[in-house]
């Protein structure tokens, strides 16, 4: 019974994940695409939980579906109707066909390579304790074995924050654009 329940939840989460992923790339309005991505990330968090990554599932919901996507929605709201009406896809039709062929080729390559490299070992996962993937274990590893990775991550985030401020501050060219527009409106 427990196994059946896990299967049912897994199939629901996987279907939701793939369906909302397709929705992200087919909606014309970026606002709906962002909402579809939130449900995509939510179903991925369920898959993470089923693969015993509890802390990562929580971080996925908090950081991704929460913080990152809210920032996305803020920017889409800031852009307003400028963000809509962009062509769905551009270029001649062979570009579009080539894109789909490239994506399919990647899919086949990934499946074949994983099947060749690990095909026979995929069916016997290691036995893990109940605390596998818990915040306690991840936190302990981050402060012992993976301390360098932890510190480098913080530097990456700091650099990104500085980059965000630099990109967000106004430049002289934009001030001139605004002045020219104001002058035109006045005349």
């Amino acid at each position: 019974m427990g196994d059946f329940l896990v299967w049912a939840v897994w199939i629901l989460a996987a279907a939701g994940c793939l369906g909302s992923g397709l929705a992200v790339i087919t909606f014309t309005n970026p606002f709906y695409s962002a909402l579809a991505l939130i449900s995509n990330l939510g179903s991925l968090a369920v898959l993470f939980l089923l693969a015993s990554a509890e802390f990562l599932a929580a971080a996925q919901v908090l950081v991704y579906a929460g913080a990152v996507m809210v920032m996305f929605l803020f920017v889409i709201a800031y852009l307003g109707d400028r963000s809509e009406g962009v062509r769905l896809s551009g270029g001649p039709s062979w570009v579009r066909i080539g894109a789909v062929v490239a994506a399919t080729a990647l899919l086949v390559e990934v499946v074949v390579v994983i099947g060749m490299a690990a095909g026979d070992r995929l069916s016997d996962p290691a036995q893990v304790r109940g605390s596998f993937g818990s915040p306690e274990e991840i936190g302990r590893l981050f402060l012992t074995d993976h301390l360098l990775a932890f510190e480098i991550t913080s530097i990456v985030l700091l650099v990104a924050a500085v980059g965000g401020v630099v990109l967000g501050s106004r430049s002289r060219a934009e001030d001139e654009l605004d002045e020219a527009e104001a002058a035109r409106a006045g005349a």
Partner: protein
Amino acid sequence: MQGPEIAWYLVVSALLFSIGTAGVLLRRSPLIVLLSLEIMLNAANLALISFARLHGDHDGQIFALAVMAVAASEVVVGLGLIVAIARRRLDLDVDRLRVLRG
């Protein structure tokens, strides 16, 4: 391990990755290209977590957390660029932004 085998997680991950690739290659709005990039990064995260579960080793999960931090940084810089493009009144269309083309 209850439920599906690791192979099924990897299949979902590969499908999600190719959906993201198709989005990046097909769509012309920089916002949707960024959203598709997020899908690709998350597909990679799912593969990392499945392999961590397969080997009973936490390293993959630590790597996935680092990927999450990189993805958050990428969104900050990407959205900053999009806002800067919009404020300069340029078209939000990746095909029309060809100033740097040789």
